[in-house]
């Protein structure tokens, strides 16, 4: 349980590191933990993959209103 609690903190620190620099203590703690924890290493790999997929997923796709809908909006606005 203690390890899992540590895993929670380590993986959370990893996400935090994407927003701000970690302290030297946190960085060393993370490196030591990752050296022996396969679950956290797997989380980090998955997290990086999700970063990439999420960026791709949010690329703008083309959608459009039909002419009928546009006419209705114009009528509403005029």
């Amino acid at each position, binding site marked *: 349980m203690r390890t899992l609690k540590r895993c929670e903190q380590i993986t959370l620190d990893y996400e935090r590191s994407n927003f701000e620099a970690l302290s030297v203590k946190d960085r060393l703690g993370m490196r030591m933990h990752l050296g022996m924890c396969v679950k956290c290493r797997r989380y980090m790999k998955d997290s990086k993959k999700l970063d990439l997929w999420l960026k791709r997923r949010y690329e*703008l796709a083309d959608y459009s209103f039909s002419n009928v809908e546009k006419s209705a909006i114009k009528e509403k*606005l005029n």
Partner: protein
Amino acid sequence: MTNNSEIDVNALVDDHSDYLLSFAMSKLKDLDLAKDLVQDTLVSAITKLETFEKRSKLRTWLTSILNRKIIDHWRKAETRYTDPVSSFFQQEGKPGHWLDSKGKNKTLETIEDQISREETNMELADCLGKLPDKWKGVVASKYLEEKDSEEICKDFEITSSNLWVIIHRAKLVLRDCLQNKWEL
């Protein structure tokens, strides 16, 4: 400064409505809701036309109104959830097993060669639909708009540590969801 009342309503709809709809859909994935919010945006824009200053482009101004409406929608929706962040770890009968993902030995990248980009997008969109609305909003702000943490925290009235926790939890939910779909 130009006279804003001269802006042609018909041109406003013709020139910008499709872009606004695409923008809304990239964040919402609910076409009816996206269309409603774009219409609301255009109505608001017309009523607030006097406040539009030509310092920014018209499209940028319209997008900011739409964005505010999407964030308001997410924030209102969030009231339906009591405490989505802390409840994640309190699953009955399996305390502490949150990091034991379904994929005991395989990471998400192991599936990448076997599926198309379209399929990944589709499954990811479906999994994103399972997140609480506020989380969806935070995730979209980070990955679509690439806003910095300060802006996201301000928009959603959360602290920076809440932001990291939301991103962390959202990724765990998404990973679990994808692993279930692909039986990793």
